[in-house]
């Protein structure tokens, strides 16, 4: 372990920490990047999509070096009922043009590569080091503790993830509250590329991203499926408070979803190779703590509860990278580290991160509409069942049949109330 004093110590080699350490090393700062996993990425789980603009912001063309999986050109929404599913498939080849908009990623690969880039840029990277405390002197954070060891620096960047024990220890914010997070579970399933291509209608380099609703026992939440190179990431994110109110363990709900008649054939022939879980910040702008800094400490990425979930777009890693870059720029610009915090907030504005968060400010209210997770997916399937059924009997008049499909699942008053709530949230 190096013993000199560092300009900055970055805790956590996820996208936020590595982006920050990379940008700092590039401007000649003496940086130490610490990671508790034995390799960067080995403690990390995410659904698996990175929006490319963030890496472009850090360094143009950097994404070309990254171990990215498939560029996403198919966006799919699946509404499930017990045995069937209605799927909307939006294909847009332009999403894959020039700098492709987004890629599926495997975090063990991406984060390890990213930490390698940080090291090549001149920073010191140490893995297998759990930071369990901060050193505070005269009201300032002046370093970190790992077991018996102490390391000193001008500023610490806490990129220690959604649970951010460091931010809590620094007194910046209280522990994560249950209503502010989702709990995600995920299986990585190895599947031959030719099967992925045929089943999802993509070429070798292209991929599909799918979200699913109606598969969570009515719990607020949704499923995701990302196609990778030679594998598929399949999972569900649940609202933990609602999950706690019913009887079935979330792992079991997830396993039933995997075996759903509309899902299982997509992954059949594959092999389950890993099972992971992680918390996800779910409140968007409202979930970001009031204080993301104090003298000697900046908080970035999931630790700052950055995240956007519109139901269609799920963003975390891009915001993490941008916040890491914002922190690095603030540290670079600050003559005195006492200025770094306010400069960091200014950079979060200048890089449009907070504007992005604010743009989707009320979206999380939509997920309070409980019928989205049960009745409405059923309604869609019932309506299509009516429209597509031919059995030789005299069919109901079309309007009557459709109204029956709606009435079976929700009252018109309830639908109107939900519509109003959705309108207010958007």
């Amino acid at each position, binding site marked *: 372990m190096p013993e000199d004093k560092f300009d900055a110590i970055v805790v956590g080699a996820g996208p936020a920490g590595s982006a920050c350490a990379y940008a700092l090393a590039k401007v000649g700062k003496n940086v130490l990047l610490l990671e508790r996993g034995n390799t960067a990425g*080995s403690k990390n789980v995410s659904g698996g999509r990175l929006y490319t603009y963030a890496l472009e912001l850090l360094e143009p063309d950097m994404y070309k070096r990254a171990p990215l999986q498939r560029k996403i050109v198919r966006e799919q929404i699946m509404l499930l009922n017990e045995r069937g599913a209605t799927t909307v498939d939006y294909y847009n080849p332009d999403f894959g043009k020039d700098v492709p908009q987004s890629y599926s990623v495997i975090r063990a690969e991406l984060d390890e590569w990213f930490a390698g880039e940080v090291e090549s840029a001149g920073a010191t990277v140490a893995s297998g080091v759990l930071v369990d405390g901060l050193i505070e002197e005269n009201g300032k954070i002046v370093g970190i503790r790992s077991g018996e060891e102490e390391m000193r620096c001008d500023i610490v960047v806490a990129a220690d993830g959604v649970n951010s024990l460091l931010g809590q220890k620094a007194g910046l914010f209280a522990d994560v509250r249950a209503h502010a997070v989702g*709990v995600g579970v995920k299986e990585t399933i190895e599947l031959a590329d030719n099967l992925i291509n045929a089943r999802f209608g993509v070429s070798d380099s292209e991929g599909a991203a799918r979200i699913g609703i109606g598969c969570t026992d009515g719990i607020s939440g949704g499923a995701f499926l990302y196609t990778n190179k030679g594998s598929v990431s399949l999972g569900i994110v649940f609202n933990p408070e609602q999950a706690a109110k019913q009887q079935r363990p979330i792992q079991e709900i997830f396993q039933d979803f995997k075996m759903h008649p509309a899902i299982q054939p997509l992954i059949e022939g594959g092999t389950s190779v890993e099972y992971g879980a992680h918390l996800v910040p779910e409140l968007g702008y409202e979930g970001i703590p009031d204080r993301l800094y104090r003298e000697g400490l900046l908080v970035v990425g999931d630790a700052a509860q950055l995240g956007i979930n519109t139901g269609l777009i799920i963003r975390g890693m891009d915001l993490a990278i941008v916040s890491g870059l914002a922190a690095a720029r603030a540290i670079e610009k600050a003559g005195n580290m006492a200025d770094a915090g306010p400069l960091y907030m200014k950079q979060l504005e200048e890089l449009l991160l907070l504007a992005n968060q604010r743009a989707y400010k009320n979206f999380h209210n939509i997920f309070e509409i409980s019928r989205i997770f049960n009745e409405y997916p059923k309604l869609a399937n019932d309506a299509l069942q009516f429209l597509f059924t031919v059995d030789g009997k005299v069919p109901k008049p079309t309007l009557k049949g459709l109204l029956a499909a709606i009435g079976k699942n929700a009252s018109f008053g309830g639908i109107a109330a939900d519509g109003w709530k959705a309108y207010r949230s958007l």
Partner: protein
Amino acid sequence: MTIKKMSPEELLALDKFSVDEGNPHILVDKAICAKCTARPCLVVCPARCYRLKDEQVNFEYAGCLECGTCRVMCTDKGVTSWNYPRSSFGVTFRCS
């Protein structure tokens, strides 16, 4: 069929763990859990580390995926201490 509904044990067997024997990173106070009626841990822990055994909440840290859900959801604060495993211990994800 290669794809099967898997038990928690089968799912955790896919993962690589290095268990810090005798040194749990999460401490649970059974006396508090005995009085808890909500027991959200039984359904929200993705690894099913919390199970009922003779009507008692039994916690096994070896298969912990280090997500934090139990700490966040624990209503009566029976989870008295929650930390990450010491350096080099715990779960290692290779393809997530």
